């Protein structure tokens, strides 16, 4: 390799570098920092701030290091008089219009302009004329603007164009009147918009929810992992006196690079929501009252021990830590129950015994950007896991072809090579047709190719593209996994993988979905694949009231596939314990004991991301009130129930116990294997409800994150139908529809969306409206309301 390198000299020191690399990067690698504003390693070179001027021998004048490629024999001086004069000159110009309002600026103390001005600015300004002022526009609840501070580096503009794939900020006006902004008053719509806060070198763009909350130097920075989408983005939590102030990304090239989704950045606000449960509570004849931990835990133990283990069902949030999951199943299995599940939104478990070790991506998150072709199946990738969508966008930018088979035309940050929207049954048929065209021999129980009613040319084009690609993948999303034909879809993808050399991966739907499988939070498998007597899966648990329920950070009206059924099952139970970070009236309507457990950031633990990476973290903020880390609560419960093996002194011990069990695991892929009795797919004569989770309402913490809840995405609860379908039902004039599933009704605003397949009604799940209804997939009736 070394003969590909050139040798240059930076400040008298010889340095080797690849020819063509920009000087600023080479210098950085050699430990020489050149001041800069517009340069950012993840963005294109703009070279517009001129701060990075250096002296290059034989060049007639100073050159910008960010836009000067290295050449053999180049001699660079980064701090010679010529270089420093140029840098100081630039600094003086940059400060001409800057308001120098550092004392009231959130960026103060961590501002690149401040830092560089310390090194290159003069103590006194020679500029006596009036400074320009830029009037701010409200660009939404997440990002605060103070555009008078902007130095026009255009990092935020390039971020929109190059990374987010949607240009929202721009430079309008010209010369002295140029302004960075949205031009019109408009909320930023990118699901990654918060990244401009980190990119902005000055205080022009700052985090709105934490505005004026603390000074940079008062905060403590601690690393942790994002618990919402299973990608496991690395982040740092900033706290002041133990209180959460804000969240920023931690760089991890294999996962989130330098980015963070808005959900991961702003969800922390939910932790301190006003309905936070801070003391154990217990229901008595005369209502709810607070009690001591001792009373609450004894009450739980006395009641659960009385119930026959087989009559206890446990619903565990898939955002829980690995330690909580492992201990919860250990405790429940100790009580004699195998009815444990964290697949709360799923309904089809036909193939659960044939599932791989865990439903995972099947490759690294970073491998996605190397794909030549990918088909998203039932996935709103952009909102479900923005970091994965970003990797796919990189694949697309490199010429990869991204395709989709979805319930509606979900928008990505790039063009789709081919797209099909299909009803649940048609999704199976379309995929079966694709499999056939790819040369897979389908077993009769999966061969629905001939019942495909959609556009065959689209399927044909997908097949051709996949055949031509060397490195391609089918990605099964949240919608597909939760649909009533999930097992058929998994079966078809497994067939394609087996016969056609096209990989298949599961896109994660929650923070620790993968971990739940390893930890044995499942009715049919114990930790690390160990065999257990089958318990009930979540749908059976809720089909009728069980005697006892054990809920772990679950709000069934939002987190379960069938909210109303879940509620009525819980209400009919004789004893319900809810370990939860928040207390709601709904919970109080069915529970007997509420145990306050710590929320995200307050407990140590581990999350397993979608490519199987175990990421452990410490508690980074103080728990509220008497809330306790979940693993500690479970440890005490285990001891109170006189179960053995609950003497852990740290969460690390819990993790290591499970890790020990996982060392001997067999090799595994993503495919389902073995005999599977697939259900027969019937025609869909009646209007079908189809749903996907509104991602800004995906779990209890996110639902309480105040700023996120003010975004237009969070408010999206409208039902979508195509105009022909509405006309057929005589509803084309209606703006509000009454939806009915069984006895349950809800009145919801309707949006005409021609991409919704015929015979379908699309309704986001986990909203206030969907909480009043029944199952996420299945028959539904509508009328005007």
């Amino acid at each position, binding site marked *: 390799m070394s003969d590909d390198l050139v040798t240059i000299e930076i400040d008298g020191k010889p340095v080797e570098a690849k020819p063509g690399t920009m000087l600023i990067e080479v210098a950085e690698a050699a430990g020489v920092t050149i001041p800069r504003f517009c340069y950012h390693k993840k963005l294109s070179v703009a070279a517009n701030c001129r701060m990075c001027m250096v002296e290059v021998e034989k060049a007639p004048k100073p050159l910008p290091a960010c836009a000067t490629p290295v050449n053999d024999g180049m001699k660079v001086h980064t701090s010679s008089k010529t270089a420093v004069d140029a840098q100081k000159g630039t600094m003086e110009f940059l400060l001409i219009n800057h308001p120098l309002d550092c004392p009231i600026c959130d960026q103060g103390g961590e501002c690149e302009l401040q830092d560089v001005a310390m090194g290159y600015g003069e103590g006194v300004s020679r500029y006596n004329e009036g400074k320009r002022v830029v009037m701010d526009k409200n660009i939404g609840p997440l990002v605060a603007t103070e555009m008078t501070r902007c130095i026009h580096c255009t990092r935020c503009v390039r971020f929109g164009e190059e990374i987010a794939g949607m*240009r*929202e900020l*721009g430079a309008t006006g*010209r010369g002295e009147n140029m302004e960075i902004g949205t*031009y019109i008053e408009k909320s930023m719509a990118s699901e990654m918009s918060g990244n401009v806060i980190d990119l902005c070198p000055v205080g022009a763009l700052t985090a709105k929810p934490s505005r004026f909350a603390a000074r940079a130097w008062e905060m403590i920075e601690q690393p942790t992992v994002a618990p919402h989408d299973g990608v496991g983005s690395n982040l740092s939590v900033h706290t002041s006196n133990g209180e959460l102030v804000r969240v920023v990304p931690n760089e991890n090239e294999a996962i989130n690079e330098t980015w963070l989704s808005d959900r991961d950045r702003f969800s922390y606000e939910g932790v301190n929501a006003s309905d936070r449960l801070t003391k154990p509570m217990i229901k008595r004849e005369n209502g709810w009252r607070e009690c001591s931990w001792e009373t609450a835990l004894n009450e739980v133990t006395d009641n659960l021990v009385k119930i026959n283990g087989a009559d206890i069902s446990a619903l565990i949030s898939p955002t829980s830590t690995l330690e909580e999951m492992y201990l919860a199943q250990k405790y429940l299995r100790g009580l004699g129950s195998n009815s444990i599940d964290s697949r709360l939104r799923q309904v089809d478990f036909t193939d659960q015994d044939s599932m791989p070790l865990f439903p995972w991506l099947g490759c690294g998150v970073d491998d996605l950007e190397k794909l030549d072709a990918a088909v998203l199946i039932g996935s709103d990738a952009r909102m479900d896991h923005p970091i994965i969508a970003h990797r796919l966008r990189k694949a697309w930018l490199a010429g990869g072809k991204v395709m989709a088979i979805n319930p*509606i*035309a*979900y928008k990505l940050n790039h063009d789709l090579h081919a797209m099909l929207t299909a009803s649940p049954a048609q999704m199976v048929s379309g995929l079966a047709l694709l499999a056939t065209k790819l040369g897979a021999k389908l077993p009769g129980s999966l061969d629905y190719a001939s019942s495909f009613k959609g556009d065959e040319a689209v399927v044909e084009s997908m097949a051709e593209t996949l055949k031509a690609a060397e490195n391609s993948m089918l990605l099964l999303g949240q919608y597909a996994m939760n649909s009533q034909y999930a097992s058929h879809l998994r079966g078809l993808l497994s067939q394609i993988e087996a016969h056609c050399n096209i990989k298949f991966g599961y896109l994660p739907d929650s923070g620790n979905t993968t971990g739940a499988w390893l930890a044995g939070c499942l009715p049919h498998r114990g930790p690390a694949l160990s065999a257990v007597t089958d318990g009930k899966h979540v749908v059976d648990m809720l089909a009728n009231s069980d005697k006892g329920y054990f809920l772990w950070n679950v709000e069934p009206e939002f987190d379960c596939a069938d909210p109303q059924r879940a509620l009525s099952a819980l209400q009919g139970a004789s004893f319900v314990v809810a370990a939860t970070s928040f207390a709601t009236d709904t919970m109080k309507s069915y529970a007997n004991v509420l145990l306050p457990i710590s929320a995200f950031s307050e407990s140590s633990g581990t999350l397993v991301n979608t490519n199987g990476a175990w990421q452990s973290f410490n508690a980074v903020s103080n728990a509220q009130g008497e809330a306790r880390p979940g693993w500690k609560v479970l440890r005490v419960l285990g001891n109170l129930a006189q179960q053995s093996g609950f003497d852990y002194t740290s969460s690390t011990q819990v993790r290591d116990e499970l890790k020990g069990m996982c060392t001997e695991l067999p090799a595994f892929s993503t495919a389902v294997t073995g005999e599977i009795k697939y259900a027969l797919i019937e025609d869909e004569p009646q209007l079908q409800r189809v749903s996907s989770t509104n991602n800004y309402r995906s779990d209890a913490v996110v639902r309480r994150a105040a700023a996120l809840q003010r975004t237009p995405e969070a408010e999206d609860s409208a039902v979508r139908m195509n105009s022909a379908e509405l006309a057929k039902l005589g509803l084309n004039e209606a703006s509000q529809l009454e939806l009915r599933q069984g006895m349950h009704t809800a009145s919801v605003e309707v*949006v005409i969306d*021609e991409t919704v397949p015929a015979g379908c009604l699309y309704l986001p799940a986990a909203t206030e409206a969907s909480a009043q209804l029944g199952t996420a997939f299945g028959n539904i009736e509508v009328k005007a309301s």
Partner: protein
Amino acid sequence: MAESTTRKADLLPADVRGEIDHWLGRFPDDQRQSAVLGALRSVQHHDPQHYLSTEMMDAVADYIGMSEIAVYEVASFYSMYNLEPVGKHEISVCTNISCMLRGSDEIVDHLEKKLDIKLGESTTDGAIFLKKEEECLAACCGAPMMQVDHVYHEHLTIEKVDQIVDQLRGSHD
């Protein structure tokens, strides 16, 4: 979230579309944004208030396939585009060096008094718009000069200005 179903480009009248198509035809398919200057000019000409509303700029963005902000950038960069409603006839007095030396300031003063508006404003009857600032229009040899609806008037005197404005007013009534 899914795409909304009505298109913003629907706002563009047929003749404007025709003109934009003409411009689009002159550039390669992967350079559609090159047509934005012509498209905006066409929209402004057809607009009853002679300006580019946000809605119309969005329509252009949608029609050409650019981001909206990129259209705002172009529209706000060039002084020939009006971003607020203006009067029917546009008067731009050059105030650059040659014209200034030859008395353009008096011309501006006179116009402001005569029309009872300031630079950058339009008369209340919507007849005349006095453009805020105009740089050298490359007619220095005829200084002082002004441009009225794309026509150059040179060697201006107060009388000549009066005559031109009165004529405009007449043609408007």
